[in-house]
């Protein structure tokens, strides 16, 4: 291997002097993403163009140095956490919206474009980019492609993969390839769909062609208040069963309400067992008809009270509670472990009961705020790391809950990805053969261990039993929500 100063010199020649970070004190800020995992990278390189990405990767490849792509670092499973031997490559300088094609309803963006910025940018054309992770003020489209991110409004309209049409990719060895594009269903394998959600282990996306949708004409938001979680869960099953697919269907439990209400003042009753947020959007006529329907169904669903936001201000207030939930947990416990399991919608209640009983038994707090409409749970285990053994206990409880999700016919992750966090849980869902098939894809993309290594797949021979080795113990500030 070349000595470091040589390497630094070559990298500087590619991206410019100020865009290679190599001093130990400067590197420190790049050691983690949204997860608790951390390791200081060997170098940080910030390219500005596809050509630079390609040259950086070729150089790294030739020198046998792993590269870890990074967006905004809001990922919750450790996908963008570097290794001490690796070059961390944030794509944050590449944040240009290259094209908005209003007639064909597509846009081409660089990976560093912040999710919400894209929708703001296209608003003037009456269009928006639908997938809206709760971190959308910070996370990037490239990171969304990495994780196949979801969001509250993905229930009716689909997640990232349903909105990405094409990619410009740089492979591990620096080769640039274009796949898919704004002409759909072109001959060949669906390489775009294969790369979305691959957590930066197949290729680095340097251009992303996305589909845009018209802004809804009308939006209507309801809040239904329930005495207990059971009734709230049955309401979700009932709404879906009645053939309604609202734009969003979100639930908060009592502990979450307790945490969030005192400082957000969304008007959630403190003694409620759960509240359900239901949002309808679309054409004026559709929203009008469906809101009558939903209003009636909620009234009959055993809700103690059903509120309907009459103004945009009232709507924002109802959402403020949902959006403020995450930041509010700091008020009731110093640490939390956020999970991301999915169960079939009819098993929601069972999964929640299991988690509640388990945490009660083990002396851990548990709050639930989640995307109820698609069965995507976010159990939040609350604890105090300073109490000996509690972290261990929380991690173990998290593993048990995920295991239960799988048993109930569900999966380990609905939107946050496997990363480092769930490596050891993969065998709960996949046989060695299942994983071997996935690794063949990695092989075909020419990643022989130099592009985001050690992520997603447990090493061969790793024990099938999960070890709570890591988890997303978060300390996110106010203003972000999950």
């Amino acid at each position: 291997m070349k000595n470091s100063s040589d390497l630094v010199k070559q990298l500087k020649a590619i991206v410019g002097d100020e865009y290679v970070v190599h001093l130990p004190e400067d590197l420190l800020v790049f050691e983690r993403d949204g997860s608790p995992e951390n390791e200081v990278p060997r170098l940080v390189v910030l390219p500005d163009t596809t050509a630079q990405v390609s040259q950086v990767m070729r150089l790294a490849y030739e020198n046998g140095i792993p590269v870890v792509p990074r967006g905004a670092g809001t990922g919750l499973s450790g996908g963008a956490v570097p290794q001490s031997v690796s070059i961390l490559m944030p794509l944050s300088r590449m944040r240009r919206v290259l094209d908005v094609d209003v007639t064909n309803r597509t846009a081409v963006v660089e990976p560093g474009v912040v999710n919400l910025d894209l929708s703001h940018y296209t608003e003037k054309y009456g269009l928006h980019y639908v997938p809206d992770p709760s971190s959308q003020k910070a996370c990037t489209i490239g990171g969304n492609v990495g994780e196949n991110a979801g969001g509250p409004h993905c229930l009716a309209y689909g997640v990232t993969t349903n909105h990405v049409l094409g990619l410009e990719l740089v492979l591990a060895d620096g080769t640039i390839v274009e796949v898919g594009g704004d002409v759909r269903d072109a001959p060949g394998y669906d390489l775009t769909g294969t790369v979305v959600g691959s957590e930066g282990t197949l290729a680095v996306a340097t251009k992303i062609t996305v589909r845009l949708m018209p802004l809804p004409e009308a939006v209507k938001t309801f809040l239904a208040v329930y005495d207990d979680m059971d009734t709230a869960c049955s309401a979700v099953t009932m709404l879906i069963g009645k053939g309604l697919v609202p734009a969003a269907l979100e639930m908060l439990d009592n502990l979450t309400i307790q945490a969030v209400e005192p400082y957000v003042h969304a008007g959630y009753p403190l003694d409620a067992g759960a509240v359900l947020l239901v949002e309808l959007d679309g054409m004026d006529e559709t929203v009008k008809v469906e809101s009558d329907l939903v209003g009636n169904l909620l009234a009959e669903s055993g809700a103690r009270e059903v509120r309907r936001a009459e103004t945009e201000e009232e709507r924002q207030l109802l959402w403020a509670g949902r959006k403020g939930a995450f930041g509010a947990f700091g008020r009731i416990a110093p640490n939390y472990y956020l999970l991301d399991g999915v169960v079939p919608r009819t098993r929601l209640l069972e999964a929640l009961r299991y988690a509640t009983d388990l945490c009660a038994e083990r002396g851990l707090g548990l709050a639930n705020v989640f995307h109820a409409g698609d069965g995507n749970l976010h159990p939040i285990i609350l604890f105090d790391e300073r109490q000996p053994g509690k972290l261990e206990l929380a991690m173990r409880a998290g593993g048990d809950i995920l295991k239960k999700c799988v048993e109930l016919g569900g999966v380990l992750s609905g939107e946050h990805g496997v990363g480092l966090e769930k490596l050891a849980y993969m065998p709960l869902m996949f046989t060695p053969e299942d994983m071997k098939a996935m690794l063949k894809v990695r092989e075909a993309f020419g990643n022989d261990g130099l592009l985001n290594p050690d992520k997603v797949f447990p090493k061969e021979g790793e024990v099938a039993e999960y070890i709570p080795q890591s988890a997303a113990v978060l300390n996110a500030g106010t203003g972000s929500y999950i």
Partner: protein
Amino acid sequence: MQQPRTLPTLFQSSLPSHSVHSGEGLEPYRLDGLIPEVALSPKDEEQVASILSICHAEGLAVVPWGGGTRMGLGNAPARYDVALLLTGLNRVLEYQPEDLTTTVQAGLTLATLDAELRKEGQFLPLDPVGYDRTTLGGVQASAASGPLRHRYGTARDQTIGIRVVHADGTITKAGGKVVKNVTGYDMNKLYIGSLGTLGIIVEASLKVMPLPASEGALLAFFPSIETAGEAALGVMGTSLDTAFLSLVAGEAVHELPGGRSVDGAAALAVGAFGQAAPIARVLRDATAICNRNGAAEVATVSSNEVTNLRRVLAEAPRGGSTTLMARLGVRPESVAGLIQSMAELSNKYSFNFGAVAHISHGIVHSGWTGKEGLMEAQRQATFIEEARDVARAEGGYLVLESAPPGVRALVDSWGDARGGQALMSNLKQQFDPTGVLNPGRFVGGI
């Protein structure tokens, strides 16, 4: 005299004798002049697995068959020993209506699955040509779609999990049975549209949808393809919630309800699903847009006729005596221009031409028949190459979906892959290095 082959006997221990077909029974499985040695009809994935492990060990080439509705897609197989008939895998394995998901075996026909779902007031919004006979696995493998892709997307959007049998007989699963999942790679996407060249799809989990309360549609007839195209882009540019938006041209216009008497060059079909008020709004606004763009006639389709209209839109350019069929893709705004060029080119060749385009996705299904005696193979092949050049000039592609064997021998089904051919070859190499599965039939000789 050739040595009598004993290929069928290889499978005697893994399949009951009534599942092993040879001799006379093989004629229906002829492809591009090739006839397999044996046809096998397994009943479950274990049987599929043992068949493939034998084929793998013996170096035999396997061509999977679903309903046989789109076997014209893809090039002639490089080798063809075994026809693998998958219609025996036809059970619904799990169906929980309140989850809006189902898990079924891949040989189930769409029509049968739909009948099951309708009992619960639900449906699968996949409506490709050949709906009555086509199997789910066949639709997935060929990524076939119909008019409803406009609103609901395609198999890639409906499929949440898949089980495949690999070239060596290994069975693996991808995805899951829930509607949201990012655990591991999204292998569903890889298998969908891979024409059985990476693995045999034996089972799939799907998202299903509630049946709409009602369906409405209008049919507008236009004096030119251009004006119909303008109207279509006009509708697409609004926030109207349309279920389908299909541009119909040439001979296909006459297949439409009420289209026989019309001598317009093109028509636009606009559909809406849901409650009465939103449907009325869509039809009202769309009518205004059509009129503004010079529609000769705008007719409302009565609600019980909409299903029929949707079938016609799925089948029209490819029905009856069609000799050549192709799927073309361009950007939405280039659709009308492409169809116009196709019409002119067809005219030059004296071919009858019809097209149905799902314009918001830029997909143009086209069909051609010959006017007396002008359909020699070479001429058809030259025509296809010219048509492909026209599509390319618009930034698009042409995939030949059906043609007489003589024509197929002269022209590649796919044209070139637009990007990533090397990656595709690598994938094939990883998944099927010895070429057991549909060898030679896919893009770039895969």
